[in-house]
C-alpha cells in the first residue's frame, strides 16, 4: 500500500503544479495510477467490488481536488469506477447463470467442462445487455418497461457479494482473482484506447478533408496534428492556417510540427482570425473537454474562432477522444439525486477555467512604476486577466469527431451513458457526504 500512496502523492503533486499538460497525458497517467491502485488493493472476501470502488473513489477524489480544471482526471476515475461495476456485474450474472445451470445439470460436474465453457460465452451477450440496462441512465425504453434502474445498481454489487457468499469457497477465490484480473484487463484496454484514440480519429481525416482545402486551427493539439498529417499522408494537399494562441503560443509549436511534416502552414495572429476565416473551408480544433450538452472547453480564444466560423458558415469541427467527454449536464434537467451543479455549474467559461500568471501578458515589473497610482480604497488600479480556457456553446459546434466516429453536439450526452455509470456522476460529493 505505501508504494501506491507514494505514487498517488507524486501524481497529486504533478497535478497541483500543473506539470502534466494535455488531457491525453493526464488521462493516461490517471488510468495507470488507478490500475496500480486496483492491483495493489487487498480485496475482502465479500463485496470486493464495493471495496475497490471505495478505494478508487477515495483516490479519485484527491486527484480531482488537486486539479479541478483537468476534467480528464475525473473522467478517468469515473470510467474506472464504471469498469469495476460492469465487470462485477457481468461476473455476478455469469455466476448466477452458472449456478442455475449447475442446478440443472448437477450430475456431471466435471464431464460438462466443455459445456461450461460454452455457456458463459453464450450468456455473455445477455449479460452485456443486462448490464447496459442496469447501468445506463434512464432511457425512454426503460421508462416504458418500468425497469428499476438506479436501485438495481448498488444492489447488484451487494447481491453479487451475497451470491458470492453462497457459492463455494474455491469458486470464490478464483472469482475474486478473476474480478480483479478482469478489471485490470479492462483498465488496460482503456489505457490502450486513450493512446490509440488519435489514430482512430485520424483515420477519419480523409473523409473530411478534400483537395485544396484551407483549414484553420488554433492552439496546439496532438489530435489535430495527427488528424492533419493523416490527411496529408493520403496525398491530400491543403493549406493550414494556425492561429498562434497567445499568450501561450501553442500555435507556434503546432506550426513547427506541421512544417516538419511538410504541410503548407501559415501562422497568423489570433486577431487575424476574423479576417482570414472568410477564406477558410473548415475549422478543425482540439478540445480540452467536451460537456454533456455538446459544449466544448477549449484553449482560450476558441469561442472567438467559433463565433467567426458561425458568422461565415464555416464548419467548426472539434476532435475529441472519448476520454474527454465529461459528465456535465448543463441546466441540470437530467439530474437525479444529488445536485450536479455545485461541481459543474452553468457558467463553465468562468467556473471551469483557470487563470494563469499575468507575467505571460505583462513582464514582471513592467508596470511597477504605474502602480503607485493606487486609488484611495486600496484596490489595485491594474488587473490582468489571463484565462486558460474558453467555453464554446454547442450551437457553435458543427461536428465532433471522436474515436467512435462523428457525432452531433446533441448526441454527446449519449456517449456518457456508454462510458460512465450513473452512480459515479458525483464522485466528490458522495464521498464527502460519506465522510
Amino acid at each position, binding site marked *: 500500500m505505501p508504494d501506491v500512496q507514494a505514487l498517488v502523492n507524486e501524481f497529486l503533486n504533478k497535478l497541483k503544479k500543473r506539470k502534466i499538460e494535455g488531457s491525453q497525458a493526464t488521462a493516461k497517467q490517471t488510468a495507470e495510477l488507478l490500475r496500480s491502485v486496483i492491483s495493489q488493493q487487498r480485496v475482502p472476501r465479500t463485496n470486493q467490488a464495493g471495496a475497490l470502488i471505495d478505494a478508487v473513489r477515495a483516490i479519485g477524489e484527491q486527484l480531482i481536488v488537486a486539479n479541478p480544471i483537468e476534467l480528464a482526471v475525473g473522467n478517468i476515475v469515473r470510467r474506472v469506477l464504471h469498469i469495476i461495476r460492469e465487470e462485477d456485474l457481468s461476473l455476478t450474472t455469469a455466476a448466477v447463470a452458472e449456478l442455475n445451470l449447475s442446478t440443472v445439470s448437477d450430475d456431471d460436474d466435471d464431464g460438462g467442462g466443455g459445456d461450461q465453457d460454452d455457456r458463459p460465452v453464450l450468456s455473455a451477450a445477455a449479460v452485456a445487455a443486462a448490464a447496459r440496462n442496469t447501468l445506463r441512465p434512464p432511457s425512454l425504453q426503460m421508462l416504458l418497461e418500468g425497469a428499476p434502474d438506479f436501485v438495481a445498481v448498488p444492489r447488484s454489487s451487494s447481491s453479487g457479494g451475497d451470491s458470492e457468499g453462497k457459492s463455494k469457497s474455491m469458486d470464490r477465490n478464483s472469482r475474486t482473482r478473476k474480478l480483479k484480473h478482469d478489471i485490470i484487463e479492462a483498465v488496460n484496454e482503456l489505457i490502450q484506447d486513450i493512446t490509440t484514440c488519435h489514430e482512430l480519429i485520424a483515420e477519419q481525416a480523409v473523409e473530411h478533408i478534400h483537395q485544396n482545402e484551407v483549414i484553420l486551427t488554433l492552439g496546439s493539439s496532438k489530435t489535430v496534428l495527427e488528424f492533419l498529417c493523416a490527411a496529408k499522408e493520403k496525398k491530400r494537399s491543403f*493549406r493550414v*492556417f494556425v492561429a*498562434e*494562441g*497567445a*499568450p501561450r*503560443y501553442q500555435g*507556434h*509549436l503546432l*506550426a*513547427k510540427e*506541421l*512544417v*516538419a511534416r*511538410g*504541410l*503548407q*502552414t*501559415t*501562422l*497568423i*495572429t*489570433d*486577431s*487575424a*482570425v*476574423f*479576417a*482570414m476565416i*472568410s*477564406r477558410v473551408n473548415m475549422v478543425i480544433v482540439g478540445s480540452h473537454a467536451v460537456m454533456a450538452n455538446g459544449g466544448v472547453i477549449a484553449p*482560450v*480564444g476558441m*469561442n*472567438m474562432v467559433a*463565433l*467567426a466560423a458561425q*458568422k461565415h458558415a464555416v464548419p467548426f469541427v472539434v476532435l475529441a477522444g472519448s476520454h474527454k467527454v465529461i459528465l456535465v449536464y448543463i441546466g441540470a434537467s437530467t439530474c437525479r439525486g444529488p445536485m450536479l451543479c455545485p461541481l459543474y455549474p452553468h457558467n463553465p*467559461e*468562468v467556473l471551469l*477555467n483557470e487563470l494563469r500568471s499575468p507575467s*505571460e*501578458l*505583462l*513582464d514582471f515589473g*513592467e*508596470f511597477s512604476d*504605474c*502602480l503607485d*497610482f493606487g*486609488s484611495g480604497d486600496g*484596490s489595485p*488600479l*491594474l*488587473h*490582468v*486577466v*489571463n*484565462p486558460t480556457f*474558453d467555453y464554446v456553446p454547442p450551437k457553435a459546434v458543427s461536428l465532433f469527431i471522436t474515436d467512435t466516429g462523428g457525432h452531433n453536439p446533441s448526441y454527446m450526452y449519449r456517449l456518457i451513458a456508454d462510458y460512465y455509470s450513473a452512480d459515479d456522476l458525483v464522485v466528490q460529493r458522495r464521498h464527502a457526504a460519506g465522510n
Partner: protein
Amino acid sequence: MDARRGSLPVPRVRQVGFFTPNAQPAPTRSQSGPPDSSSPPLSDSPASNSLSPVMIPPPRHHSDNLAAAPRPTSPLPVPEPSPFRRRGADNNNALLVGSYNPAETLLAMSPSSSHVGDGESEETMSGGWFRRSNSGKLASSLPSGTFDFSPVQSTAEALKPNKVQNPVGISEVSARPAPKEQQPEAPSSSKQPKPKLTKAERRALQESQRAAKGGGKSVAAPEEVATIKSVKQHQTQKKDAPQVAVSVAASERKGGDKSQEKERRKDAPAPRMQFDDKSRVEKAKRRSVVDQTEAKKRVELFRHLPQYEHGTQLADLESKFLQLDPMHPAIYKVGLQYLAGDISGGNARCIAMLQAFQQVVKDYSTPPEKTLPRDLTAKISSYVSFFTQCRPLSMSMGNAIRFLKNRIAKLSPSLSESESKSSICTDIDRFINEKIVLADRVIVQHASSKVKDGDVLLVYGSSCVVEMVLLHSHELGKQFRVIVVDSRPKLEGKALLRRLVAKGVHCTYTHINAVSYVMHEVTKVFLGASSVLSNGTVYSRVGTACVAMVAHAFRVPVIICCEAYKFHERVQLDSICSNELGDPDAIGKVPGRMDVNYLNDVSNSGNLQLLNLMYDATPADYVSMIVTDYGMIPPTSVPVIVREYRRDHLLI
C-alpha cells in the same frame, strides 16, 4: 398614358392652375422677373400649358432648388421627398446664388429669385436666353434622370458658362411645340422622361445640339472667366472647363450626361494597384525610389498586396539620402518615420504628412515656364508615391491628399505665388484643425456623453480618439472601469494601458483571446477606426472585427469613434481584398518570452509562411453606432456623410 394622367395628381394640379393668375403672366414672365417670382412658381407653367399637369417635374426641381423661395408647400404629389436630397438641393441653391450672381448681373437680367420662374417657363422665347442658361441646365439635367442624385455634379453643370447652356434653352424652346404628348409622362416620375420624347422633340434636340456645337466654340473664352470666378466649383469641372468645354458643348445634351457620368466615375475610387499584376509592378518599380526586395515567402492569398522584406528599405533609404535631390527633407523625414514605424495611427500619420507638405509648399518656388498648380500637384504626387513606398497610405491620408490637390487645383491664377502658397498653407492648417483636432474634440464630447457611472468599457488596441474619450470621461469624474484588450504583435494596448493607469483609471488588461471571457461584464465597447467605408464596414486595426463580433454575440453595444475625414466611398466586404501586410518576422518572435522559440529553426522552411495582417474589416452589423464630428450615426448613414462631406470638402 391617359390612364395614368387620370390618377390622383391631376385634380390637384388643376386646382393649382386655377388659383394662380397665369394665363397672362406666362408670356410676360421672361421680361418681368419679380412679379413672377411672387406667384407660386409651380402653378404658372402648368396653367400656361392649358391645365395639363405637364409641368410637374420641373416644378419639383424648382421646389427643391428654391427651397428658400416663399412658396406654399408644394401641392403636388412630390414622390419620395428624401431629406437628404432636399438638403443637397439647398446647398445646390446656395451655390447657384453664390457663384452665379455675377453672371446674371452682367447680363442685366432679372434678380436671382426670378430665375426660378424662368427655369420653368418654356414659353419664354428669345428674351430669356442668357438668363435661362440656368433653366436650360435644369431642363437638361432633368431628362438625364441623374439630377436628384448628384446635386454636386449638377451644380457643376450649372456653373458651366452661359453659352454652353444656352443651346439648351433653345432646345427647350423648340421642343415646346410638342409638349402635350410628352408632358403627361413627366409628372409620373421625373426620372424616366427621356424615352418618352416624341420624334419632334428628338429632332429639336438634335438641332439644338448642333447649334450648341457652333455656339460652344465661339464662346469658350468668356466662360472661363466665369469658372474662375466661381470658386466653389466641383473639382473636376475645373479641369473640364478650359479645354474640354468645347467638346462638352459639342454634344450638348448627351455630353452633359456624359460629363456627369464622368464626374461620378471620377468620384468613384480608382482601383488600387494590384501587386499580382506583373507589368504594373515592374513599372512601379522602375519609378520607385525605395529599393524593396520582395519577400521570398509570400502568402499566396495576398499576392495582390505588396509583400516586401522588411527592414531592408530603411538602411537603403538612409544611404540614398544625398542622392535623392528631388525629395524635400521634410518629406524624407516623414517617409523614414513611416518606414520605421515611428509614426503610426491614422491621425498622426495624416498630420505628419500634411505638415510635411506644408513645409514643401513654404519652400516651393515655381520653376520657370511652369505654373504653380500643375507643378506643385505633380511634385506632391511624386511625394505621395514616395510615402506609399515607405508604407501604404491609409484611406484618411488619401482623403487629405485629395483635399490638398483639390485646393491647389482651384487656386485662382490671379494670385501671386506667395499668396498662393500662403493660401495653401492656411488650407492645410485649417484641414488639420477642423477635420482632425476639432473633430476629435466634438467626438470626445459626444462619446463621453455615453459613458455612465459604473460602466465597464472595453477598448481594443490604442486609438487616440478613444483614449481621449476615456480620459475626458475620467476628468468629468465618471466612475468606470476600462478593459484594455491587446493583441500581438504590436501590443499597442500596453502603451494605452500605461497612460490610463498613470491617470488613475481602473484598468484590466488582457489579450484578444480572452475577449469572450471578459465580455460578460462589459457594458460598452469603444473602438477606433482607420477608415469607415461607404457600406458601413469599419476598416480598422486587425482584431477590431473579432472584438466587435464577440461584443455583438454578447449583446454589448459597439461604438466606433472616427473622424469624418476618414470616411471613404470605397466599399469592402472582407479583409482580404485590400489590406496591409506588416513585418512577418514579428509573428514568429515573441519578445520577452524565451520559452517560445519553436519557430527559430524552421523559419526558413519553405512550407512555413508568416502572415502579419494589419487591418481587418468589421461588418456593419456589428456596429451599433459611429461617433463622428457630425454626430452619432448608424453605420447605414455613412454613405450619406460621405456624400455630404464631399461637398463640404469643396466648400472648406
